[in-house]
């Protein structure tokens, strides 16, 4: 199961498993992100290349518009995947 919720301050919190099936179920939610925002990974337990790809496409669209995504609270093994993918040099990660 995967959930994304937006806080009052605009932060989007990701929770659960972001696998290929969940990417298809939530693609429209990410396409609806229109402005720069923070994605909080604190409760995200799993992500695959499908999830990474959707995050990248969202970030790239926002970068082209002069903004971008900022990622916070990544679990160590998820951060390691970002490093392997070269996404540590693509996203702003705190």
């Amino acid at each position: 199961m995967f959930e994304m919720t937006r806080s009052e301050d605009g932060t989007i919190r990701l929770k659960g498993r972001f696998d290929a099936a969940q990417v298809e179920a939530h693609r429209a939610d990410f396409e609806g992100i229109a402005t720069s925002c923070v994605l909080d990974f604190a409760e995200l337990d799993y992500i695959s290349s499908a999830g990474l790809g959707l995050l990248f496409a969202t970030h790239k669209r926002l970068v082209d518009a002069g903004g971008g995504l900022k990622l916070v609270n990544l679990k160590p093994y998820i951060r390691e995947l970002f490093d392997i993918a070269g996404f540590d040099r693509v996203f702003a990660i705190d």
Partner: protein
Amino acid sequence: MPSERSFPKAIASLDEVFSHLESFYSAESIDPRTAMAMSLVVEEIFTNLVKYNTASKNPIVLRIGRDGDHVHLELVDRDVDRFDPSTLPEVNIDAPVAQRRPGGLGLHLVRAIVDHISFEYEDRVMRVAVIKNLERGDV
């Protein structure tokens, strides 16, 4: 003795695949970090077989077993055309954002995580086998 189970050839099977893997991790006391990495490996290979081996709707067979400090995984896809993922171009992780293209990332992650991967195709059967060393400190 490796366990063997078949799953419908569809992305929607992933929940069932993960559930099966969780039982294996629990039985073999696999740590959460390695479990996450193994699940990612299976998802990437499984979804590639679903997306690229479209010639048949046969179920995909997943075999998983442990031999000491190593986990052996095999995914088998029957009655399919030849598709060799190892011939796909490497993803360029150093490319700037504007020049990065989708595709190839899954196999890149799999190669970084596992200690051995092989692709075999014979008699219209595709077999992808991987070995993961449980003693590795990274993913």
